[in-house]
């Protein structure tokens, strides 16, 4: 596509990303996971609270990984985000359907 006009040859400042962020998200992920396991194994709490709690932890962890590890927070990720969000929306409708339908 030599002639397509998207300008890609503009010099970009070479910037090395630091792995610090990635270590951090790794540690956070591990912590969130351990917390979830711990609540289920040892938490003597209300059942529905546990359910909501661990699902929330899962979502938080997923968002962190999406943003940091998959670089979705960086520029130029508009359409990726739209489609992941769109997918999540459809997936969520499916899940809500299943939950509604089993519990009502």
């Amino acid at each position: 596509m030599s002639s397509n006009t998207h300008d890609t040859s503009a010099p970009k400042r070479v910037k090395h990303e630091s792995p610090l962020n990635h270590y951090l998200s790794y540690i956070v992920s591990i912590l969130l996971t351990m917390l979830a396991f711990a609540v289920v194994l040892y938490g003597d709490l209300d059942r529905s609270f546990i359910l909501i709690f661990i699902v929330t932890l899962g979502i938080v962890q997923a968002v962190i990984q999406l943003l940091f590890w998959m670089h979705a927070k960086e520029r130029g990720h508009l359409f990726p985000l739209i489609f992941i969000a769109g997918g999540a929306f459809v997936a969520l409708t499916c899940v809500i359907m299943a939950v509604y339908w089993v519990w009502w």
Partner: protein
Amino acid sequence: MAHAHPVKKHHTGLMDWLTTVDHKKIGILYLLAGGFFFLVGGLEAILIRIQLAFPDQHIFIGDSFNQLTTMHGTTMIFFAAMPVIFAFMNAIVPLQIGARDVAFPFVNSLGFWLFFAGGILMNTSWFLGGAPDAGWTGYAPLSTIQDTGWGQTIENNLQGTDFYVLGLQIAGIGTLIGGINFLVTIINMRAPGLTYMRLPMFTWTAFITSGLIVLAFPAITVALVELMFDRIFGGAFFDAARGGNNVLWEHLFWIFGHPEVYILILPAFGIISEIVSTFSKKRLFGYSSMVFATVLIGFLGFMVWVHHMFTSGLGPVANSIFAIATMAIAVPTGVKIFNWLFTLWGGQIRFTTANIFATAFIPTFVMGGTTGVMLAIPAADFQYHDTYFVVAHFHYVIVGGLVLGLFSGLYYWWPKMFGRMLHEGLGKLHFWLFFIGFHLTFFPQHFLGLMGMPRRVFTYQPGYDLEVGNLVSTVGAFLMGIGTLVFLINIIATQRKPKTALADPWDGRTLEWAIPSPAPEYNFKQTPLVRGLDALWKEKMAGNKEMTPAEPVGSIHMPSSSILPLVMSVGLFIAGFGFMYRNYYVAAAGIVVTFIAMFLRSVYDDHGWHIEPEELEDDKGVKA
């Protein structure tokens, strides 16, 4: 720039078509295959109508009738309508956005061959013990039950639904990657200056439709996988005895199925927008609200699927919520209808065949849409559901909407695709036969439904006032058939004439009319610079003869053709048969073939080839 690239490997004849990665040729392939399946599906419809012409006939009864119905619906939706839409997206979208190619030419060709393999696989069922017979909706457990005991009329029709499952699965993958291809093409490959709010309406609808494909097709993939697991590996998804649930299938099918109907209709909306605006010589009225309405319809389309399941027993809460959401879609759709009417308003309307089809679309679609809103009332749908009223509704929106739109697009873009103009007189004959036939066929069906005729029945009893309506309906179907034959004659007659079509025969407004007809292999000699909505019209009004180029003439990079997409599809085709006949060696062999082709594709980089400036067609003839 062009150092040491191989020249194009010139395949000719059949090999050229089997290996092509040129989006224009793939578009033609989609059109041929889709057109073929339209004839097959239409023939099935005619047979359905013959059986129902009079009460108590014994031509196609029991399972044979169910096979006709199932295959008619499935073929028309997946193997006729979708491919013809893809034909237009391939042939037109890259031209409308001023691109030389699509983002993934190889994937594009793979998408075509997968669809074709799936379609052929499904239709081989006719010769291999009987076609699928559980309706195009394939409701479980009718579709999972494999042995219905002594009573099977067609011997051992156990495999039928396997053809449905595997055929749709293979074709579905093709459609999904096709959708991704068009999204990326439209996002990344627009000509300079072509901002989103300057995109031609057809490209917008192709964009949203592709988005819907990407988000809706995985649902049917999952549904089909579950059905396949139940049928082939003894799974319990839909087996009530083991805790399975048949309503789950209905949910998954319709989570896909409803967006699917908007996948079908949105491109037709786009086609109508282009044609109405061209032939009234006006810009599209309310362009931005058109865009917004398209997006909104796409979005709402995901939240209404339960309206197909009002009678499944989900309860009044779910039914009410989905009823309101469904009705809401009438609003953006109405915006479109009125925008078209006001595009025509004050214009200089020319009644070419393309525009006759396009303007006939408007009232017909409104009739179908309004019966849709009637269906959206759950308590009333308790009466309509699964009757001929529903059949009438969806043929009004599909045949009176989508199919009229597609015919309109064919007359409009035929010169751009083939370099020849279809005959206008024959075109008008085609229109009148088809249009009158259409209303004769489907208008009486509203009343048949209300008078108690369920759908998917192979007969009805005399004495309930159903005779006249059914007979009229059958006569109408024959008229539609004759109309279609006239169209075929038109094509054949046109094909024998020389390629004399002008670059811009209709006084067009969008970029595809700025290049010769048919479009050269590289589309644009120089990428055009876009300065506004209706880019070509804008230049014409500014007194320019052609588009302003955005780059100097240079050598043009082209992708190499490849046989691998066909090989991959054949691999899956073979694997499909392996699964159906429970021969896992064959299944494995087929998959291995596909994987080897994928491996080769990954390992050997395609460097493409170049067209040098001196080889470019001298398209001085192009006038803006």
